[in-house]
């Protein structure tokens, strides 16, 4: 199966290629409203389809203090 990688807070997951960014975020148990997805250091929308070999980095947007 062709896969893409999801990276969030030093953790990595493999997800199926062809999945939307939003589905991938939910698949790894992250709330989509709390992150911005980056592919190749570019912001991508949640409906973007992941290609085989893609690396999707999720940047946390919620800060405290």
């Amino acid at each position, binding site marked *: 199966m062709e896969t893409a990688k999801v990276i969030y807070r030093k953790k990595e997951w493999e997800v199926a290629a062809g999945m939307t960014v939003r589905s991938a975020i939910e698949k790894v148990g992250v709330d989509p409203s709390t992150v*911005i997805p980056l592919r190749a250091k570019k912001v991508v*929308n949640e409906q973007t389809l992941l290609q085989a070999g893609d690396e999707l980095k999720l940047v946390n947007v*919620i800060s405290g203090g």
Partner: protein
Amino acid sequence: MKCDICGGLAIIGMPQNRLNLCEEHYQAWVLKMVQRAIEHHHMFMPQDRILVAVSGGKDSLGLWDILTRLGYQTEGVYIHLGITHEDYSDVSQHKVEQFAAERGLAYQVVNVRQTYGQSIPELKSTGRGKHLCAVCGLVKRHIMNRIAYEGGYACIATGHQVDDEAAILLQNALHWQSGYLGRQGPVLPSTHPRLARKVKPLCRLYERESAAYALVRGIDFVEQECPYAVRATSIFYKQILNQIEARSPGTKRQFYDGLVEGKANGELVFHSDKVDEEPALNAQDYQTCPHCGQPTLGSGLCAFCRLWEPPHE
């Protein structure tokens, strides 16, 4: 997903605004939203010098970038708190310095330990102050007021956005802290010549939108969370509000805007008899700290100077 303006590839969808935008039009939209907030709330004028409080995070560095692009006169101030866990304060300072150097912006750094003798964690370990975040807030407010007064800045701009404000509002409303509710808003007026006017130009942006702007602009900000804020109550309230927002987009903004508009048109009036919640309304209500000279509501040393024993030099 297509950009609602040009039909190009959208990078972000904002259900609360029913708006999808590409990179170019998203940046333009953010600049417009911030400029509108500045004008609507009469925050400052083009000729004013603005002190931007920067932490190295997405919101404050994004704010500095936006104000610079809008043509305002800005200088930054970074307060090094002495948080050594994963070199948090050093890394944050480096991000600020790098940001300013790349853009040729002026800034100053105040190192709490070098200036006053102890870092924030060291100060807290001596048993002074109830909670580290409260001590940190007190120290930062004191320093920012001092820098703004000494430098003659028109105001201090901070990177608070809708999520920050809505979380504070929820917390204060749940505990009916009417004094704090009365003080909250996009502009905190100066009530004494040595207490700076404070403004929040990102008050119309969601935290997610602020982060997206910083990423689109290629701003290298600190992604790690302050180690003392990991379990902060504000994060818990933000998560609760995000759950509500997912069911009903726009709720966070309506919640906060309702407070701001209600206070502006007189429908909401708050009053508190608690000294720590209710600020003095004019300069005559204050006394002067005999050590640092900053205004204080009680007699004797101000709350900042009482943190240090003996008082800092």
